[in-house]
């Protein structure tokens, strides 16, 4: 697979428009169901902007979203976060860390029986509020929780 990719990339660099088109087609077989990477949302520097870009501005606060995470994370480079939502018909889950340079961490679409549950590990630059946005039944719900970080995991 990699060799093929290299060949195609070489072809593309050579300037053939056909090769470029071919590469685009071959390199994105998942595009049929994978949404394009939401660049503006991931590059938004404030939570409000990120919320706007994922069309979740004005989300309602909800106590039905549970965020399981340590109260104090010793290492900001690896902060385990587990999200469970009890709201029926969840369609997507978005994770945000308010004080990171780019707050949006992840945007996950669920389908075909996937439960409203997500477990991941993220980087946090400093003590911050973590926000979780769940889209369910066409509506957005939001929950937050503060995690204290003793050593940041973003800079160097």
């Amino acid at each position, binding site marked *: *697979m*990699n060799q093929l*990719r290299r060949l195609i990339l070489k072809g593309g660099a050579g300037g053939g428009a056909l090769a470029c088109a071919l590469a685009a087609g071959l*390199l994105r077989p*998942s595009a049929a*169901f*994978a*949404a394009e*990477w*939401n660049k503006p949302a*991931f590059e938004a520097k404030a939570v409000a902007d990120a919320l706007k870009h994922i069309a979740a501005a004005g989300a309602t606060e909800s106590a039905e979203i549970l965020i399981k995470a340590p109260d104090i994370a010793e290492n900001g*480079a*690896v*902060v*385990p976060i*587990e999200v469970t939502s009890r709201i029926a018909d969840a369609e997507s889950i978005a994770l945000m*860390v308010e004080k*990171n*340079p*780019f707050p*949006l*961490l*992840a*945007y*996950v*679409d*669920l*389908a*075909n*029986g*996937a*439960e409203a*549950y*997500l*477990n*991941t*590990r*993220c*980087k*946090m630059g400093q003590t911050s509020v973590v926000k979780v946005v769940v889209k369910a039944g066409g509506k957005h719900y939001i929950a937050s929780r503060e995690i204290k970080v003793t050593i940041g*995991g*973003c*800079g*160097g």
Partner: protein
Amino acid sequence: MAELMKIRTKLVDGSAHIVVLIIHPMETGQRKDPRSGQAYPAHFIQSVTASINDKPVLVAQWGPAISKNPLLGFRVKGAKAGDSLVIAWEDNKGEKARATATIA
């Protein structure tokens, strides 16, 4: 290129609990080389898709703030033992990998 992926599945009360560990540097583009002062170029996974029996169950878009060697845990209701699971990811440099597993 790291193509290592570890997949663990467990059936609990009619739902499959799946944990995927991907080996990837997840470079944010903000970390600087202390000697040259140059930032290491960003290199992170942008999309991860999981499908069971060729049907997508989870499509994740990730930013660079997901930890190095990312972990992804999710649950799928109605999945049965023997169902085939495919995990595929692609990063911002166009590198990609794919792994398959059987739900047990």
